[in-house]
């Protein structure tokens, strides 16, 4: 999420000549997972969204990563070759670090829930997970835990905090629905990029939902309304899709 704004800046500089410097760090994840295939899949998906992600294969590795660099969020597998992820959790909580931890568990939700949350995990997702769900949970955890200003982005008369879910247009705070928020974030992540209706639908709706193109138009319409008072504008490119532009 946060790292995406780096991309935003570069592309903005080249495409729309937006000069405002946005000093936002990329969002940094640590993934502790012993299954290499799954880890590769998760890291590549995370990098697509512009996040920085380190991968540790076991607890020892994970402890080493945590000791040497700072993370915004740790994704922790429960069954690891050199021990139970829960013991990592205990040790992690015993040290002074308060990095939020989301557990990736392959076990039945029935049996594990109580134990993991009691040990100080902030949340958990059950494998296999929908990436959008993981993202939503990360957002929720960060909203609860940090809520600092680091995640804010200011551009074209709007102030947007994707983690807190706040949008200010001009001086006025605007309430956004979750999908409007994600749509705006998507556009801000890749300014100048054209998103087809299908692509947008895939990001906003779960695959199990049957979404009509009309639904996308509805959300685009709402976002346009929200941004009316700002310098940001969503342009329709007939037959291609939509693009967020910053006009002076």
């Amino acid at each position, binding site marked *: 999420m946060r790292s995406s704004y780096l991309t935003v800046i570069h592309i903005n500089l080249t495409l729309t000549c937006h000069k405002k410097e946005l000093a936002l760090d990329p969002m940094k994840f640590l993934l502790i997972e012993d299954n290499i295939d799954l880890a590769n899949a998760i890291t*590549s*998906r995370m990098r*697509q969204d512009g996040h920085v992600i380190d991968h540790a294969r076991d607890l020892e590795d994970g402890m080493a990563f945590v000791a040497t660099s700072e993370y915004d969020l740790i994704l922790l597998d429960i069954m690891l070759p050199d021990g139970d992820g829960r013991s990592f959790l205990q040790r992690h909580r015993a040290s002074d670090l308060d990095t939020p931890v989301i557990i*990736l568990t392959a*076990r039945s939700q029935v049996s594990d829930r109580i134990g993991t949350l009691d040990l100080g995990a902030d949340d958990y997702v059950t494998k*296999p997970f*929908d990436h959008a769900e993981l993202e939503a949970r990360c957002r929720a955890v960060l909203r609860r835990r940090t809520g600092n200003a680091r995640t804010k982005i200011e551009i074209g008369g709007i102030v947007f905090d994707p983690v807190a879910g706040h949008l200010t247009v001009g001086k006025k705070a605007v309430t956004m629905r979750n999908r409007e928020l994600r749509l705006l974030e998507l556009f801000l992540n890749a300014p100048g990029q054209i998103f087809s209706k299908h692509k947008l639908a895939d990001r906003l709706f*779960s695959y*199990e*939902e049957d979404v009509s193109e009309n639904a996308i138009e509805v959300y685009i319409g709402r976002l346009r309304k929200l941004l009316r008072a700002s310098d940001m504008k969503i342009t329709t490119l007939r037959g291609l899709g939509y693009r967020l532009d910053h006009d002076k």
Partner: protein
Amino acid sequence: MTNKVATSGSLRNRLVFTLIGGAAVLALLFFFVVRSFSVQIAQQGQDNILLASATSMLDAAAIRNSTIELDLPYSAFSMLSTQADDRIFYAILQDGKFLSGYEDLVGVDASSSNTPTFKTSFVRGAKVRIISASRTLIGASERTEIQIILAQTQDDLSKTLDQISRNAAFLGFGFFALTSALSFWATSATIGQLGKLTKSVTRRGPQDLRPFKRSVPKEMGPLVSSLNSLMGRLDQSLSQSEDFIAEAAHRVRTPLATVRSYADATLQRVDKEENREAMRSMIKAIDESSRAAGQLLDHAMITFRADHLVREEINLVELTRDLVERLTPIAEMKDLSLALHSDDQVIYKGDPVLIQNAVRNLIDNAMKYGPMESTIEIFVSRVPSPSVTVCDNGPGFPVGEIESLTTRFQRGENSKDIVGSGLGLTIARDVALAHGGNIHLENKLEGGACVTLSL
């Protein structure tokens, strides 16, 4: 789980009957032994007096001038006097010839020897004890034999014997009563040990399979040790099946997660619409199978736990609030909101894991069928019974299918485009049934479905 155990007879009754029967036999034996001894002793006493009396009579006999003189001494009779005024008969014979006394005694005893003989017989209709003793008198020129037959009735003796018998009977009965009381006490003390063991087995929770540590009587040792080893094996097999379910979940879910994440990542890169469509179908299929696998495992876990129901005190409101909190990020993704309406607290004794799973399934269902940007209402109430109701604003249940929806793998007519395994309601129903409740499905008048899980 209360199976009728085939029982044959009662250990307590068997013990009591054996002990009391034994006591009765012993008491009777005691009575007869005491009586026969006292009869013997009393008889001996009478015999001694008779002998003394007969001897003093014989002593009084003498030969004077070739005639026999016998002056019956008074003391010979007075020593025979009893409180019961027993009668005395006597006969004096010289060389077998009747001299004086009661002649009908003569035929009774014909024996003549130098040692006195005793016998019991009847004279004139009365039971008598007879002694016959003789003495040889030697005169100047002759020798002659004097025989005395003395008989005494036994009224006094039998009176004494009656008294002794009565006392013996009292004693015997007292012994019997005491022994019976003792045997009741001993029996219940013995059986009580079994009862104690039974109580401590019964008092245990369904998950408590620790071995018994408390010391038991030596004879119960083998029973307790085989009970302990049985519980050990049970514990092992229970944890094995729980581990198995967890392991199976792990094995199935991890590769599915890999495929799911790759497919997701690939979909973001692919531009061609037909390829995207293929990826979407793939993801849908993965979701469907992982959900089915998950619910099957959940269902197995629930069936397993329902058999060994653990009841803990839980606050249904808190439990539901936790769930709502946890599901809110997912609901938000669909712009759904979850609204919880509840009493302050609803305390219920049940298995928190099961109930939570059931409620989660209900909310999951509502989130699947609820239209976007709608609100899912969740009610937790205490009356009439602790219950959780989840209502959505979706299409509602197809009329006529409400009954069959809770059976395994049955899905509604209108669920074609929604991923699901059809186990959600079954799980909720099984959990409700395990707690002695049920689930109730209905359509709201203004549209939408309501499911109530009552416990």
